[in-house]
């Protein structure tokens, strides 16, 4: 316990990335993510790496594209409007099969929106953002310790499957402090494939590598897209992460991720004390989505209540997974308003038909 330090989510993520051997950071400041870049500016050069504040988000993501192509462990971070700007670049990075980490500390939208916590970028993160048949692996931590642990894993997942990985937090997770230890952050798994595709110089020993996302022959492009789709299927089999809490005897199950899941836990504590058998499924990977546990659970509960800081985005995936086996209701606050346990409890009681 004594080796734990108190850190903000933004700073802890930056420290974890450096410890995970990330040596290149390209970014552009935006609230509520700025402390991440500020920490990188201070610490990355001391670790022998490069911090660069680019002239724009578009420039930053294309610098990430370049560094990833050269085989570097590289990342960028931003908040919602900045991620919209980066989405073109993310599509190119996915199209060129390059590994990198993109951090989104989500704020209220659309447009410039606000600066308070939100989860309204779920569609953007899991269904595209950029154009084309692609996915990012999307990790959604709910505590500062989980931010740290997932940061190490994110780089490994990116390298293993040659894909961009997103860590999606929100303003609250970025700004708050909790005790963390970095003991679980490795410098990269020992069984990661070698980056034989990297454009890091032939040294006159091999044929040149080319990083590209343009394929004018439809058959060539289809073949590549289908190969990538195969990889997504492997990711769906191997990389699903979730937390299931008190679902064994549950009659109703909440589904929530990130900050919202923590608030739901408070609501569950109160409801359990009142005699309601309720549990929580907390997706930790938003892509791949924990469909299986949700499908299995939906078959034996009376209903699910999905809670989000949005007008309802993840709820579509929950309904697809439940596939009609039980009703799936929704409660959310949006625009940067953080829901409180009492309104979640009220929404639940409405769903089950009033007080006990």
């Amino acid at each position, binding site marked *: 316990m004594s080796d734990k330090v108190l850190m903000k989510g933004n700073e802890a993520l930056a420290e974890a990335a450096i410890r995970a051997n990330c040596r290149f950071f390209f970014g552009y400041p935006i609230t509520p993510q700025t402390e991440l870049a500020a920490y990188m500016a201070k610490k990355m050069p001391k670790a022998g790496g490069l911090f660069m504040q680019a002239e724009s988000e578009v420039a930053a993501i294309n610098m990430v594209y370049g560094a990833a192509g050269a085989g570097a462990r590289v990342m960028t971070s931003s908040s919602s409007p900045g991620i919209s700007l980066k989405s073109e670049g993310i599509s190119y990075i996915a199209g060129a099969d390059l590994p990198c980490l993109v951090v989104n500390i989500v704020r209220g939208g659309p447009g410039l929106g606000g600066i308070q916590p939100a989860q309204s970028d779920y569609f953007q993160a899991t269904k595209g953002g950029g154009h084309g048949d692609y996915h990012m692996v999307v990790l959604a931590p709910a505590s500062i310790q989980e931010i740290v642990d997932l940061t190490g894993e994110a780089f490994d997942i990116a390298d293993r499957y040659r894909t961009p990985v997103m860590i999606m937090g929100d303003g609250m997770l970025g700004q708050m402090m*909790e005790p963390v230890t970095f003991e679980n952050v490795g410098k990269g798994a020992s069984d990661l494939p070698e980056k034989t595709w990297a454009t890091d110089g032939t040294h006159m020993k091999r044929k040149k590598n080319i990083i590209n996302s343009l394929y004018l022959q439809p058959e060539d492009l289809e073949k590549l897209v289908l190969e990538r789709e195969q990889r997504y299927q492997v990711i769906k089999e191997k990389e699903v992460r979730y937390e299931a809490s008190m679902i064994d005897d549950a009659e109703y199950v909440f589904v929530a991720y990130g900050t919202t899941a923590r608030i739901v836990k408070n609501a569950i504590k109160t409801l359990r004390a009142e005699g309601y058998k309720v549990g929580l499924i907390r997706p930790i990977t938003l892509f791949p989505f924990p469909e299986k546990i949700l499908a299995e659970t939906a078959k034996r509960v009376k209903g699910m209540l999905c809670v989000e800081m949005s007008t309802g985005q993840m709820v579509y995936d929950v309904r697809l997974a439940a596939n009609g086996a039980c009703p799936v209701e929704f409660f959310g606050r949006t625009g940067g308003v953080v829901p409180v346990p009492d309104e979640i409890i009220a929404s639940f009681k409405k769903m089950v038909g009033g007080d006990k």
Partner: protein
Amino acid sequence: MNNQHNEIILAGFGGQGILFIGKVLASAGLAFHKEVSWLPSYGPEMRGGTANCRVIISEEPIGSPYIVTPNMLIAMNKPSLEKFEDTVVPGGYIAIDSSLITQEIHRKDVTAIAIPATKIAADMGMRKSANMILLGKFVKESGLMTLDELKEGVKKSVPATKTAMLETNFKAVELGFQS
């Protein structure tokens, strides 16, 4: 350190060191093996006048870090007291800097703690330490933790290179504790 689940809201003007005293409490909790969280306001209210942070110190893993009904409130200006006074749970504690807040704490179902921290700080020639004096007084009256535990939190929150700052802060919390 008491073994309750404590939810503390600290609020005042930007620049009074509100976020810092919140960090001191959270650091002390961490040093003595509690679960802790520290959540600052970073929105328009911070730019317009009041800054606040929410600190939880608990034996159990912390669910929501966003406190709605605190059992402890430290207020360093009038708008903060007005904003949060009614949210404190009955039997809780409210501590105010009575040199800056002239009105009384109207709640009768809480323990009211008032100390002219800003005046004491000025008299002692340590103008920037009103927050620490109030913190010391609050910690003593609420029984949240011992003086030694609080000082451990101070030690963990001040950069190791700034020994003068550490001494001033020690002196200020002691002053609050003794008054």
